[in-house]
Structures are given as structure tokens and as C-alpha cells.
């Protein structure tokens, strides 16, 4: 707070030199008083400074007063010294002692020449119990020589209103994953709040950072702070959260707190819907949608099939890249897999990066039964016993026919030889 007071300690301002004096004239320096209070508004217990600047408004060191006599002769009547002599300058506490001046007064300050200034800095402290309102400190200057003494009241305001944290965007329930919450940092005071830092805390949850720097909050102003809260590894249930705002009013550090809670629901951020499994090739084709039911956008979403016994991911889509998946949005995927006949569920892995750019892996399972899968066939490994028996019977029939035909040929050949021998 900066105020300026023009103190007229002059009976007659000598603005034009020399001054023609027809009567008795007295001239003294013009002193301008300027003061600032930092911080502009104190909180109880705060320390601050009051700076008082005295400026000599005169332009010349000496003012000559002349006299015009009969006949037009001008003669100097008197010369005035325009240097301001300051014997002492002190600041006293207010009358109730609620603001204490910690600094001693200045003594034997000396002369303040024309257009020169003198600065007096006093440290003050507001009492812990000081009531809100304007309190007046008393500045007293003792002059010397032609400089008059004067007193001046310096107003200092005390306001115990703290910086306020408002939970403007904390959802009551969240699913597992990264959620975004919003806090308003509100300054209801009439002075600036500087160096504001918000520190979140909570059990079984992870915040995007340990501290969030907000900076200056202007008087009657508000700054919205967005914080990512990660509940991917949290157990389901209510989670208590605390937010501490640390800020400075002048040189004094203050803190404000906010308590809130969220309910973590036992459900993953990504869910699968519209799953359809078809036997459209030598392999099975799985199609479906990945839905982001979380509150934040995800990136690098990849859906893939986990290889296991009887489950072999196949081209062209052993895995499917979806990419960015905004909150409340979905992405379709297609996967190809070779399945053995005894497989009734397929393990699926969904990989993505959350709003904190953390790499997350989510495991799901697709049930083949009831998913619309057309399961015709079995692989060669799954050839049924009936078919094998059929092949063996066919083989025996053919081999039997061939062996029989060759045996018959031999017998007929022997008969022919016998007949030829008889002939």
C-alpha cells in the first residue's frame, strides 16, 4: 500500500524567486510524505514492513526575499535555507498495541536537500489476537532549524480471511484407473496471495504429483487446479483425501486445508462389449468394442490375445491397435486366433497409457460359449474316433481287395499251369 501526503510546512510557498516582500515573510521547505505497507493486508501473527519516504519538494537551496524601495531600488530583505533538517523519525504502535513496531526510530537523520528523499523502514507485527479492521500507526518527525515537527497516522489493515480450497470437481465415485479432480484456489482477501502450493494426500490412492504449484492468486480471484488421481491399484471402497494449500502473505507462511472423499468402484476403466467370435477362416475371428468408462482420455490402447495352450494368436490381427480412446468413447477391434476344440475362453490383454502416461495392463477373458461362435470343426488333432475308424475300415477294404485280387491271380495262374501241364 502506497500513500502520498504533501505536507505543507510552509507559511508561504515561494514559487518565484526572488520574492518581493511587502510584509514579513517566513519560508520553510515543502516535505512530501510517501508510505507503503507490505503486505498490504496483514493476517494475525504476520510480520510486515512499513516504509516511509520523505521528499524535500524545494528546488533551490536558498530562497531570497527582496524588497522594492522608493525609487525602484530592489534590495534583499532576507534569505531562507530550503534544506529540511530532520532530528528524528519514529513509528509508534497503534493505541491498542495490536500492531507492534519492532524497529527502533531513526535519530540524527540530518538534512534532506532540495529534491532529495529519505527512506525510513520499520518492521511491524500483528498480534495473534488482533481484530480485523484498520489500525493506525503513528509516525512522528522531529525537525530542526526551520523544519517544523509533524505527526502522521499510517493505516494498516488486518484481515484473518484465509485462502480457500473449494472441491469444485471431485466425483463422488470413480472406477479403477486415473480420474481427474478439480480444486478451486480462492482468494477472498483484498491483497495478493503468493507462492501458493497445493499438497494432496490420501491412503490407497496415487496422485499425479506430490505437490502442485499454483503461484499467485490475485485479490478476489480464483485459480482452478486439475489433479490426476490414480486408483488403478486401489481396493474398492471409500478413500479419504486431504488437500493442503501452503501460501505466503508477505513473509509469513500460512496453510489452508480441505478434506474430501471418493468411492472407488470395483470396475476397470476399460470394458469389453459387443464381443462376437466367428469361425470365418482357418482361425477364429473375435470382434468387439473397448469402452472407456473412466473420466480421462487414454492413449496407446492395444488389444491382444494371450498365447496359451490351445490358443495361438494368428495373422493378420494377433493384436489390434486402437490408439487414443477418449473418456466415454469406444474403439472397435478385431483379433484372429487359432483355438483347440476344448478351449472355452480366450484370455485378452488390453494395454494403454493413462492420463499420467503410466503404462497400464488390463487382463480380460472372452467366453467362447454363448458368444455366437460357430465351431465347426476341430483341427486335425481333434479328429474324432469315428472318422479314424472309418479311414481304417476303408484302408482295410482297399488292402483286402488288392491282396485278394493278387491272391486270386496266383491261384488262377497255378490252375492255368496245372491245365497246361495236363495238356
Amino acid at each position, binding site marked *: 500500500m502506497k500513500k502520498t501526503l504533501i505536507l505543507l510546512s510552509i507559511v508561504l510557498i515561494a514559487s518565484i524567486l526572488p520574492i518581493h516582500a511587502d510584509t514579513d515573510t517566513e519560508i520553510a521547505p515543502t516535505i512530501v510524505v510517501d508510505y507503503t505497507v507490505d503486505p498490504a493486508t496483514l493476517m494475525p501473527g504476520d510480520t510486515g514492513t512499513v516504509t516511509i519516504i520523505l521528499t524535500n519538494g524545494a528546488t533551490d537551496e536558498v530562497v531570497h526575499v527582496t524588497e522594492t524601495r522608493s525609487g525602484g531600488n530592489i534590495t534583499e530583505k532576507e534569505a531562507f535555507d530550503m534544506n529540511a533538517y530532520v532530528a528524528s523519525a519514529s513509528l509508534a504502535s497503534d493505541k491498542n498495541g495490536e500492531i507492534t513496531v519492532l524497529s527502533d526510530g531513526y535519530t540524527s537523520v540530518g538534512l534532506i536537500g532540495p529534491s532529495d528523499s529519505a527512506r525510513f523502514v520499520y518492521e511491524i507485527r500483528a498480534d495473534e489476537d488482533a481484530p480485523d479492521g484498520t489500525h493506525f500507526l503513528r509516525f512522528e518527525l522531529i525537525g530542526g532549524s526551520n523544519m517544523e515537527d509533524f505527526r502522521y497516522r499510517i493505516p494498516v489493515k488486518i484481515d484473518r480471511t484465509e485462502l480457500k480450497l473449494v472441491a469444485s470437481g471431485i466425483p463422488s465415485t470413480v472406477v479403477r484407473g486415473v480420474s481427474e479432480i478439480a480444486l478451486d484456489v480462492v482468494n477472498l482477501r483484498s491483497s495478493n496471495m503468493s507462492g501458493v502450493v497445493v499438497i494432496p494426500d490420501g491412503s490407497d490412492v496415487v496422485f499425479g504429483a506430490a505437490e502442485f504449484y499454483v503461484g499467485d492468486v490475485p485479490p478476489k480471484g480464483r485459480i482452478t487446479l486439475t489433479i490426476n488421481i490414480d486408483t488403478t491399484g486401489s481396493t474398492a471402497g471409500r478413500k479419504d483425501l486431504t488437500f493442503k494449500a501452503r501460501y505466503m502473505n508477505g513473509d509469513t507462511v500460512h496453510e489452508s486445508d480441505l478434506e474430501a472423499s471418493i468411492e472407488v468402484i470395483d470396475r476397470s476403466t476399460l470394458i469389453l462389449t459387443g464381443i462376437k467370435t*466367428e*469361425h*470365418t*477362416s*482357418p482361425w477364429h475371428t473375435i470382434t468387439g468394442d473397448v469402452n472407456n468408462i473412466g473420466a480421462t482420455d487414454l492413449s496407446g490402447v492395444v488389444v491382444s490375445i494371450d498365447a496359451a495352450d490351445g490358443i495361438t494368436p494368428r495373422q493378420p490381427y494377433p493384436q489390434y491397435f486402437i490408439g487414443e480412446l477418449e473418456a466415454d468413447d469406444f474403439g472397435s477391434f478385431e483379433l484372429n486366433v487359432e483355438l483347440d476344440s476344448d478351449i472355452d475362453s480366450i484370455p485378452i490383454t488390453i494395454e494403454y497409457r493413462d492420463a499420467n502416461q503410466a503404462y497400464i495392463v488390463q487382463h480380460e477373458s472372452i467366453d467362447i460359449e454363448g458368444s455366437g461362435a*460357430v465351431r*465347426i*470343426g*476341430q*483341427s*486335425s488333432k*481333434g*479328429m*474324432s474316433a469315428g*472318422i479314424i475308424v*472309418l*479311414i481304417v475300415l*476303408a*484302408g482295410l477294404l*482297399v488292402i483286402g*481287395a*488288392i491282396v*485278394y*485280387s493278387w491272391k*486270386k*491271380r496266383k491261384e*488262377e495262374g497255378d490252375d492255368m499251369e496245372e491245365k497246361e501241364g495236363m495238356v
Partner: protein
Amino acid sequence: MNRNLYTQRRTFDREVINMTNVLTNPDGFFSELSARDTNLKIPFAIVLVAAIIAAISAAMMVSAMTSLLPEEAVPFAAIGAAAGAIGGLIMQFILWLLYAGVFYVISIFFGGEGSFKRCLEFTGYGFIPTIIGAVIGLAVMMTVLPTIEFSLEDPQLFQQTLMQNPLMQASSIIGILLTLWSANIWIFGIKHARNISTKNALITVGVPVGLYLLYSISMMYKMGI
């Protein structure tokens, strides 16, 4: 009158017995048939039956493949099915001529003497097991095709799907066995048609049929059977 009827029945019975012999005693069958004039009617009928069944299978296959075509392309699908049927029909006759020609040429190196017509006649009888194979193939096709979904973009994928079906695999294996049976008939047919020794007939038939079977087995292996 009664005597004529008895004579006709005896002749018919003998021919029936002979037709059974082609499967169980081909040596005796062709030995007896060699004494008669060349007659292509029965071999033609045998190949025709095999060809008709193969044509139905081919038409079913093409029809299944074109079933996913848009409505505007339905006439083309019908044309495709007809082309498939004709192709299947002709293929059996081409195979008949091809086998007979190959056997005829190879047997020349063993001093074969019979006519090509006789060779063609006897080779035709070897298609009787093919009829059995075609009937099995048709039954399998009727069972398997309705259960397979496939994309037109990748016909090779469709073929792979088809061949990975156990019924189709069984049909292919039985087809190989029946080809061996046919080869057995052709050995004795060529022996009598070309008047060469059983050993030479075995080589004449065994080499091309063996190569064909090796090719078929390698293709089956390639398909992942």
C-alpha cells in the same frame, strides 16, 4: 423260347459276375474281357457316373463360394456354379484320357502291343473306385460346406478352412486309398490291354500313379493336414 431266355440270363449273370470281378479279381476280369471286342460303353458309363458326382461336388463348392456375392452378382454366381459343374464333368474324362495315354506311352517301352482303344477301355474300369470316392466326397461336401463361413477376399483361406475339417481330411485319405485300388485295377487292365508282363504293368501304372499320390500327399501336408 425258354432256351433263348436261359441263354440270355446266363450271359447277363456272367457279365454281372465279371463286373464284380473287376474289383476283386481284375486279372481274371480283364483276361476274360480281352477275348471280346473292344467296347467303350461300360467304361464310358463308369466315368460318366464318377464325372456327374464330381460335377455336383464342384457346383456345390462354387455355389458356396459365390453365396456371399451381392444381389446384383447372383446371375454370375449361377454361371459360376454351371461352369464348376461342367469343369467337374469334363475333368473326369480328361483324367480318363490322360491316364490311358500315359499308360499307353509307358507301356510302349515294355513292348506293349494292344491298341489305344483297348487301353482306354480297360483304364475306364479303373474308375469304379473313383465313383465310391466321389460319393464319399459329395456326402462330406454336403455336410461341411453349410457350416463354413469364409471371405471372398481370400479363396486360399477358404481352401485351408475346408481342408482342416476332419471330414474333409478323412475324405482325402480315403481318396488316396481308393486311388491305390484303381491302380491295382489298372495294373491288370494294362497287362491285358497291352500284353505285357505283370511286373512291367506294375511299373507302367506304378510310376505315374505313385508320382500323383506323392503330389497329393505333399499338397495335403502343405494344407496342414
